[in-house]
């Protein structure tokens, strides 16, 4: 069979906003249209559509993928929707990748959309139902619990200080000040601002957390022969990986994300990467909370266990450092419409690797980048490695 090479050839996104006027279908279409326009294609050129959104509870629509399908451009097309919780945004381009790599499709449109504001009174309550219906839900858990429990375990295991973790939030929100779609870009935010923000679920405070929002992102994926015809700057998908750990999350140590490690190893093997710290030039780890970026950098083998914070303290993580981390501004700065936020990271790699990221462009013409997302019950890692 021999593996087919798959390229990203176009990208588009909407602004990430607290509450969008547009419906989920409209957000999807805005992003999809922009992605197609960016590589001068039309829907007629698209063989199939992959769609990501999760969970249905936000929209209050059963079979939400079917409902959104025409907005995503899937009328009269093969259509698939994947979901791996928060990992969906990076999984949906992986789904697009296997559509093309299988040889069944030449051009696939990949769309991720999330409209969280429809849920009333607050999207967070929709997360009650991610917990086990018999053994956990009766305790009325809050989504913040699992982050707070994991953050505490991570901090305590490795002796990491809150004031250091706050540096992640500061760096990402400052980066986002240069992103035209960002909801919470703040060029002047400080560590004190983060430490003085409202305590939600200790150790988690308001500015440790990314904001819920509405938005959509789309990519166009193409097989090698099509990509080479359409663009002189294809960005190749060099490796993909995904792993899902056991649902019994209280039976494992939350201090280290093994599932991210396994997902990364799968992607690195495919990409032929032996020393990720040297061979990855730009990284977009998943950062719905500030400590999560650190947690994930360690799982991704870009830092030793408990040492990821040093990337921030040394300046390596800054846009002009030797491993720029979340130059987009990440979820902490751009916003967190869940599936769309993950795909935003992949779009950022596309723009950065093509030197088209505008004010956010990192110096040195990076050759290879990585995006990663995470989700479910602290359980899934999805990883994509792209290069030019």
């Amino acid at each position, binding site marked *: 069979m021999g593996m087919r090479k798959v390229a990203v050839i176009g990208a588009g996104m909407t602004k990430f906003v607290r509450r969008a006027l547009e419906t989920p279908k409209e957000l999807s279409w805005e992003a999809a249209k922009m992605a197609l326009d960016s590589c001068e294609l039309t829907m007629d050129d698209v063989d199939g559509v992959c769609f990501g959104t999760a969970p249905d509870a936000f929209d209050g629509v059963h079979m939400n993928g079917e409902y959104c399908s025409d907005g995503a451009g899937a009328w009269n097309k093969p259509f698939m929707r994947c979901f791996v919780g928060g990992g969906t945004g990076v999984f949906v381009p992986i789904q697009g990748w296997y559509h093309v790599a299988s040889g069944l499709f030449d051009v696939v449109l990949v769309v991720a959309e999330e409209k969280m504001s429809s849920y009333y009174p607050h999207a967070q*309550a929709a997360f009650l139902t991610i917990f086990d219906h018999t053994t956990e839900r009766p305790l009325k858990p*809050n989504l913040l619990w699992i982050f707070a429990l994991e953050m505490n375990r991570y901090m305590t295991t490795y002796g990491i200080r809150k004031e250091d973790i706050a540096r992640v939030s500061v760096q990402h929100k400052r980066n986002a000040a240069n992103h035209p779609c960002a909801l919470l870009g703040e060029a002047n935010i400080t560590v004190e601002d983060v430490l003085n923000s409202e305590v939600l679920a200790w150790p988690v405070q308001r500015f440790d957390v990314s904001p819920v929002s509405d938005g959509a992102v789309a990519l166009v994926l193409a097989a090698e022969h099509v990509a080479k015809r359409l663009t002189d700057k294809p960005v190749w998908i060099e490796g993909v990986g995904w792993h899902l750990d056991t649902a019994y999350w*209280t039976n494992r140590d*939350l201090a280290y994300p093994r599932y991210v490690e396994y997902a990364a190893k799968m992607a690195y093997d495919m990409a032929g990467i032996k020393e990720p710290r040297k061979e990855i030039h730009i990284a977009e780890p998943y950062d719905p909370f500030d400590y999560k970026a650190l947690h994930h950098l360690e799982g991704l083998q870009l830092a030793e266990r408990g040492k990821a914070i040093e990337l921030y303290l040394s300046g390596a993580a800054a846009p002009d450092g030797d491993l720029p981390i979340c130059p987009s501004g990440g979820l902490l700065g751009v916003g967190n419409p869940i599936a769309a936020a993950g795909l935003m990271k992949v779009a950022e790699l596309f723009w950065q690797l093509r030197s088209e990221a505008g004010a956010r462009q990192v110096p040195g013409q990076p050759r290879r980048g990585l995006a990663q997302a995470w989700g479910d019950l602290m359980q899934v890692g999805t990883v994509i490695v792209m290069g030019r």
Partner: protein
Amino acid sequence: MTSRINHFPGTSLNEQDFADGKVLFVHDALKAEYAWDTGIAIGTYLAGLKRGVILGAHCRHCRKTVVPPRTVCEWCFRPMSEYIPLQDTGTVNTFSLCYVTWDVRRIKEPEIPAVITLDGASQLGPASLFMGGIMHKLGEVNPEQVHIGMRVKAVWKPEKEREGAITDILYFKPLPKEEA
């Protein structure tokens, strides 16, 4: 191509737009009700709780004891049919002080969710990546004194009020020093 594009779609609304009636919307509530079969493993677990016993499951092959019970070991895929009583004491593996309820109401006194590794179940260690922990809440404790490694004990509902549910345990409270 963000460097070449200066307009991005997406229109932001604010709460005032709704209050002023500038934006129309449709309100609806989902009527979704379920009666989940608890099955063999969780059914046995709930029956145990009703009797005031926390049951775990033991895998002879992996030599580990986990909770809640399950019919198959997820690591070796062998059937798991050995259910054994654990103690209702344990150690705080991690915790949080949460000032927001599940439906996002702010509260003054925090709820204290915790993962508790139960005595009699597997413990994390140099040779063990697994532990027999459950999620529950802590009570009868000053929030400032909670710490990872704290020893705790279950506080049960009175026997007559138990119904075979995880809430048959009200919360876990600190073990007195001499018992810890």
